[in-house]
């Protein structure tokens, strides 16, 4: 594995404001899937924007994303090519009059020949199941459909890193499921994924969780470790996924369940063994 994100002591402040990030250090290897959690205002979205090359760090001992130095303009431009970023509300991300045109925008900007753009758009339409939407206006789609089109648009050009900033928070259950399934598939295909989320159920799925607190890294490790640390969860304004909360309450009542189950599947299995 090679290092994709290598950040040391990174600081960032929006002009005229207090520091949003005050000394972040983190390392992400190619192919990893990392969830970033933390209270409102802890710096999650700012970090996502920096990783996507959209903001210039105020200071950093090292700020490398896909080998590019984020403290230089060339580095940020390079990071913007390597890293795709998807926001909570994709509305502002659409440029095309219909879905096909929107998907063609990235490749067009890279100066691809028309034939190759056409092929790429077809691939995306197939991969993201957009067949029925190809001539629809992006703004008129449902929330889940919009987010799928935006994700396809971000990935229209080759990417090394995918940064998602609360991509499911405005979606219904079906929309959430669609977007998360697409992200899981992309990760399985080798894409490195950074997922900013307020949903503890989503964080629990990631192999590694980073928790921010007032612009610093307060936790960096496996989800299972974070979710067994009640004191840290309270301090960081986090919580347990609902199945884990049930398990914790059952244990508090003297029934040992073993390893804390983080999802419903795990909880059902653990309970079947101890509850008659």
């Amino acid at each position: 594995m090679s290092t994709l994100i290598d950040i040391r002591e990174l600081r960032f402040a929006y002009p005229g404001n207090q520091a949003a990030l005050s000394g972040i250090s983190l390392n992400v290897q190619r192919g990893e899937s990392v969830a970033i959690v933390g209270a409102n205002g802890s710096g999650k979205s700012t970090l996502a924007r920096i990783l996507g090359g959209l903001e210039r760090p105020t200071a950093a001992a090292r700020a490398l994303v896909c080998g590019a130095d984020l403290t230089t303009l060339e580095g940020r431009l390079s990071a913007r090519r390597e890293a795709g970023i998807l926001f909570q509300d994709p509305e502002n991300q659409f440029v095309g009059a219909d879905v096909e045109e929107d998907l063609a925008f990235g490749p067009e900007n890279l100066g691809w020949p028309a034939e190759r753009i056409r092929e790429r758009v077809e691939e995306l339409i197939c991969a993201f199941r957009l067949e029925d939407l190809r001539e629809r206006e992006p703004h008129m789609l449902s929330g889940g459909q919009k987010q799928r089109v935006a994700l396809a648009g971000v990935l229209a050009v080759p990417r090394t890193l995918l940064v998602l900033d609360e991509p499911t928070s405005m979606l219904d259950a079906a929309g959430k499921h669609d977007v998360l399934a697409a992200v899981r598939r992309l990760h399985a295909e080798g894409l490195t994924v950074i997922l900013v989320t307020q949903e503890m159920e989503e964080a629990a799925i990631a192999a590694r969780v980073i928790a921010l607190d007032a612009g610093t890294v307060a936790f960096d490790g496996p989800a299972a470790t974070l979710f067994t640390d009640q004191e840290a969860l309270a301090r960081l304004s986090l919580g347990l996924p609902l199945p884990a909360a049930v398990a914790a309450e059952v244990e508090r009542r003297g029934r040992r369940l073993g390893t804390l189950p983080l999802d419903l599947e795990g909880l059902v299995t653990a309970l079947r063994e101890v509850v008659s």
Partner: protein
Amino acid sequence: MTGLGMVCEHLSFAYQAGEQRVLALRDISLSLAPGSSTALLGPAGSGKSTLLLILRGLLDPDEGEVRLGGVGMADRGYAEAQRSVGLVFQQAERQLFAATCEEDVAFGPRQLGWPPQQVQEAVAEAMERVGLSPALFARRHPYALSGGEQRRLALAGVLAMRPRALLLDEPFVGLDPAARRDLSAILRGLATSGETVVLATHEVDRAWELCEQRVVLAGGGLAASGAWDFAAGGVELLESHGLQVPTLVELWRRLGRPLAHPPRTATAAAEALA
């Protein structure tokens, strides 16, 4: 506070999008009893927000009738009845505008022409109800508050007008887990204090925890209203519209337990299991 009963009869509404008319609600009839708490569920685009806007009087239905506390749209006193319906919009904190918290919360009551003393009392009471003690927060700038506090302040601005029915559109979106717990506790208090509460949300676990009954919209039509009824088709109903079944109900189903009264909270589930 006496809750306001709300009745819809054969409501239909279409938005005008360029040349096209897009049907948002189709023949909706339902009755929300005074003091009831109702989750308004449905896939994105099913008409939830439109229904809230009509109940608040910000949109007029193309067809059908709304009755608030027995007063119909054509009756005298309907405007008065509408003023007792409060609506908390999605991301309501975006509407904060005053230089201090108390000024922001006071805006609504002042618009109603209440005397200063009554405004002051209503502001203090509303801030207390959302857990923002006036002693600590009255003079603070709304933008200096955390995201969760801002959302609660916006809720206080609606509560200060002493609504008899409170409509909330996706109040949990974007909040961190601690802020969601705080807001849940406040909404639980409201649901038991007499106001009629309607909660439109995608978060089925929260809806099941907080609301005694549910209305399900699908494609602008009414798919179901009334009790959750998990023992008699309620699970299948949610699934058939692509909605999530509450985690604790799904847990009970997977454990083969009866679905007549599944637990609404993790604590209640643990008590039943341990």
